[in-house]
């Protein structure tokens, strides 16, 4: 195996695009190195992207955030503005693994590992995040919900690397939240994960809503019907019932050791109700803190 640690994205793209055998991008390594040890992947070339400055920083530009794909969960948690403006994205990222794993694990790795149960992905989908992709043909943008195609499959072409995530500029009275179900309190893989992002009008009526669901289908989903179900409401019971039904209707789960299909469908509705209340309270409270 060959190891390269380029300091420019163009060099990393060249290496990845021209690799003859199997080549892998190494960010935090908490998935890749485990897969290498268990011989699920046996790369001929590993390209460590952590020396590329553009992939390692968090930049606030005109109210939008640009998060390098190789920023660790611990670094995200320590960023005071990100935690305040995107609490749902940060709580989702920080649910991944232990303190030790947080010291390494990245949003770029969590997305490109392409697990249907990745915790940060439904939150990023709800947030309306886009990724900036660098490749042999230049750069392009893609919505987060369009990156993962199925287990271990992404929309990235040969030579393409996710460089950064862009979280849009916040409007007033808006907030996000993420909840997942696991059978214990810490350190497990989501049975269901649900992220939501809401925007309110001054009267407390929801004027925009996006929901992402994880671990209920072959890939993390943007559930447009769930968002639509609560727009115009202030989370009255009929709206919540519509939300719950839309979340459940979107599920195409499998049975596995973590939960049955029926259980996952049931929990998706429960989490949708719970998480939307958290985001709603945060959005109301956001009027008091400047974002």
């Amino acid at each position, binding site marked *: 195996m060959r*190891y390269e640690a380029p300091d420019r994205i163009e060099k990393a793209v060249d290496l990845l695009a021209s690799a003859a055998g199997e080549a892998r991008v*190494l960010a935090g390594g908490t998935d890749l190195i485990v897969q290498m040890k268990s011989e699920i992947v046996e790369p001929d070339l590993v390209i*460590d992207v952590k020396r590329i400055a553009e992939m390692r920083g968090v930049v606030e530009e005109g109210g939008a955030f640009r998060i390098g794909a190789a920023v660790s969960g611990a670094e995200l948690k320590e960023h005071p503005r990100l935690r305040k403006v995107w609490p749902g994205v940060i709580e989702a990222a920080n649910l991944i693994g*232990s303190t030790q794993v947080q010291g390494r694990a990245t949003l770029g790795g969590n997305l490109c590992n392409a697990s249907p149960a990745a915790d940060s992905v439904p939150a990023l989908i709800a947030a309306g995040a886009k990724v900036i992709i660098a490749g042999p043909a230049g750069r392009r943008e893609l919505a987060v919900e369009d990156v993962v195609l199925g287990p271990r499959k992404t929309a990235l072409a040969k030579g393409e690397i996710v460089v950064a995530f862009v979280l849009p500029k916040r409007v007033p009275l808006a907030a996000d939240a993420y909840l997942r179900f696991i059978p214990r309190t810490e350190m497990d893989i989501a049975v269901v994960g649900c992220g939501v992002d809401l925007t309110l009008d001054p009267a407390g009526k929801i004027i925009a809503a996006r929901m992402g669901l994880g671990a209920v289908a072959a890939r993390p989903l943007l559930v447009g019907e769930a968002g639509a179900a609560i727009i115009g409401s202030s989370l009255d019971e009929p709206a919540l019932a519509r939300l719950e039904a839309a979340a459940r209707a979107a599920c195409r789960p499998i049975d596995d050791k973590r939960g049955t299909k029926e259980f996952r469908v049931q929990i998706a509705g429960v989490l949708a109700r719970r998480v939307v209340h958290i985001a709603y309270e945060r959005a109301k409270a956001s009027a008091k803190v400047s974002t």
Partner: protein
Amino acid sequence: MSKIHLTTTVNGDAVEALVEADETLLDVLRNQLALTGAKEGCGSGDCGACSVTLDGRLVCSCLVLAVETQGRRVETVEGMAKGGVLHPLQQKFLELSALQCGICTPGFLVAARALLEKNPDPTETEVRYWLAGNLCRCTGYDKIVRAVMDAAAEMRGA
């Protein structure tokens, strides 16, 4: 495939080693640098017995390639005692018998030190969450948590 010449800093000392590209930091620490404090429990980032800090950040050394540490700063349990004097955490672990077989102990010590550097006055809940990635199959954790809380109090007073 030829080996890679690694130059890094471990516990403040400049060290050099010839490593394979796919060798982990844990293996290089243990097999080449004779630093056997970090233990291999699971080898997959679940147990925390191999905890070290890398540029001040707590990580599992079994999930770091040694070559990634080129020019970086690694701290292991061997760097905790200074001039033959145990770190307050080490002293408290002894006083309170916060260990039985000892395999997990270096990982707990390194992880607890990383916590107290960030947060000198953690609550018990914060200690338990921070150490959730360090598994102990003997003690049941209570003595470990108490030792960390007591060491923190002592260090604040010092």
